[in-house]
């Protein structure tokens, strides 16, 4: 079977300047002063493949490169080298949420994010009721997002993304949001999408989530794929890695 998501030999690093200059004034004033740059390697030769209908789990401690990898797969960041091929549309939910315009209410924000995620206007309008019901926010449909609590906003985010899901779904810490009832609804919805043959890439810190939902998983450490295997195997590897070196700070790759 042909892979729906294919990433080959991804490299990504950031140049961290000793002094950050982000304005015209700073550039002009500091024109003659030399700056040194340090290279922070975030992804170092990462390859992965996800076949249609599969769920790939990604584990790793903070700073291991998970978020950067998801952003590159989603087409939001650009890799320095390597290739990404996604055969089909992609719906990302990154860093616990989607972007909201705080001045707009839930309905307008749903339309905005839904269309940004690739829904047509008709599809986006058609899913509003379902989105609000799923998030349990029908009463707050006309409330501006700036008055939402962070939990409400996160619930709305997942509802929109689940409704807008098409092709490949990228989920960052999906089951870490909301109360037990909302989590259960998310899990049900996830299983439904899985049955319908959606391809999912899922980041989680919970070994049980990865074991339950992922056919395969990878463990990232210092920007490299440290381990690859079944969901439960990777969950165990992650736990033993934390047990072995719990105090280790996010490793700068290449070090």
């Amino acid at each position, binding site marked *: 079977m042909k892979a729906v998501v294919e990433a080959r030999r991804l490299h990504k690093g950031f140049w961290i300047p000793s002094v950050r200059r982000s304005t015209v004034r700073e550039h002009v004033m500091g024109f003659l002063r030399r700056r040194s740059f340090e290279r922070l390697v975030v992804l170092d030769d990462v390859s992965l493949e996800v076949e249609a209908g599969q769920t790939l789990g990604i584990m790793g401690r903070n700073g291991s490169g998970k978020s950067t990898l998801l952003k590159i797969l989603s087409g939001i960041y*650009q890799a320095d080298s390597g290739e990404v091929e996604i*055969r089909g549309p992609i719906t990302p939910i990154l860093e616990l949420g989607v972007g909201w315009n705080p001045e707009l209410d839930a309905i*307008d924000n749903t339309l905005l994010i839904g269309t940004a995620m690739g829904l047509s206007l008709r599809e986006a309008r058609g899913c509003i009721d379902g989105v609000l019901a799923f998030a349990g926010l029908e009463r707050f449909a006309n409330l501006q997002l700036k008055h939402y609590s962070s939990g409400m906003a996160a619930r709305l985010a997942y509802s929109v993304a689940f409704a807008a899901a098409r092709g490949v779904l990228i989920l960052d810490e999906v089951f870490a949001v909301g109360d037990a009832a909302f989590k259960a609804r998310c899990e049900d919805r996830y299983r439904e999408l899985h049955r319908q043959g959606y391809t999912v890439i899922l980041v989680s810190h919970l070994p049980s989530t990865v074991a339950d939902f992922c056919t395969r998983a990878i463990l990232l450490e210092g920007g490299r794929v440290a381990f690859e295997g079944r969901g439960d195997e990777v969950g165990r590897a992650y736990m033993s890695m934390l047990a072995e070196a719990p105090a280790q700070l996010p490793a700068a790759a290449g070090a």
Partner: protein
Amino acid sequence: MSAVASAERADLVGLVWTIVRTDFKVRYQGTLGGFVWALLKPLSMFAVLTWVFSHIFSADPNYGLNLLVGLFLWEFFAEGTKVGLMSLHTKGYLLAKTRFPRAVLVATSLSNPLITLTVVSAAMLTFLAVQGRLAGPLNVALYVAYVAQLALIVLGFSLATSVLFLRFRDLNQVWEVITHAGFFVAPIIYPLDIMPERLHFNLYVWPPTPVIEYSRAVLIHGRIPSLRAHLLLAAVATASLLVGCLVFRRFAPRAAENL
């Protein structure tokens, strides 16, 4: 890099419409009253300037109309470049989380200034027509063409500066200083004739100047500028758009990394 499915492209219409509609809603609180309220600023400026300067330039019977045309075209230029420059930053919440052609954010940022200019232009043309001073349809068509070219100039500027702003966070302040000075460089409150002839070409380098002067010529004075004048404006618009696209293509793929 990654392949974008053609299905996604087809749905850009929905995204563009939603951004334009919600921007309008946020800007004007979703009411006609809010829209009229927003027009109060340029209108009150027009009232004050007419009152003061029509005494100084009392020899010109068309001073008020000239001022009106100049002021609203300028307002579009100043407002359009201001919001265009900030467009990617303002919509950073979409840029950082979802994937779609980034230029949509820059192009749609011009919708509110364009709507305002369209409404004001319609009012102005109606006023001229009622007074029986409106020249033929060719003159109106030329005016529309000038506005379109001004919009392209603003779009080109916005494409380039929206990505540069993410690297130079005080670019908006630099541009504010330039537009403050630019208001007086463009012949808005004074007739161009009071400046020495030899300076005219230099003044025309500032893009709002030719657009304002040509628009006054076709709408108020019933004159049609020369072919050379038209070609120069078209060249400026094309160059602006081209440079804007090149800069945007260079920096936009990494825009989300600099938010």
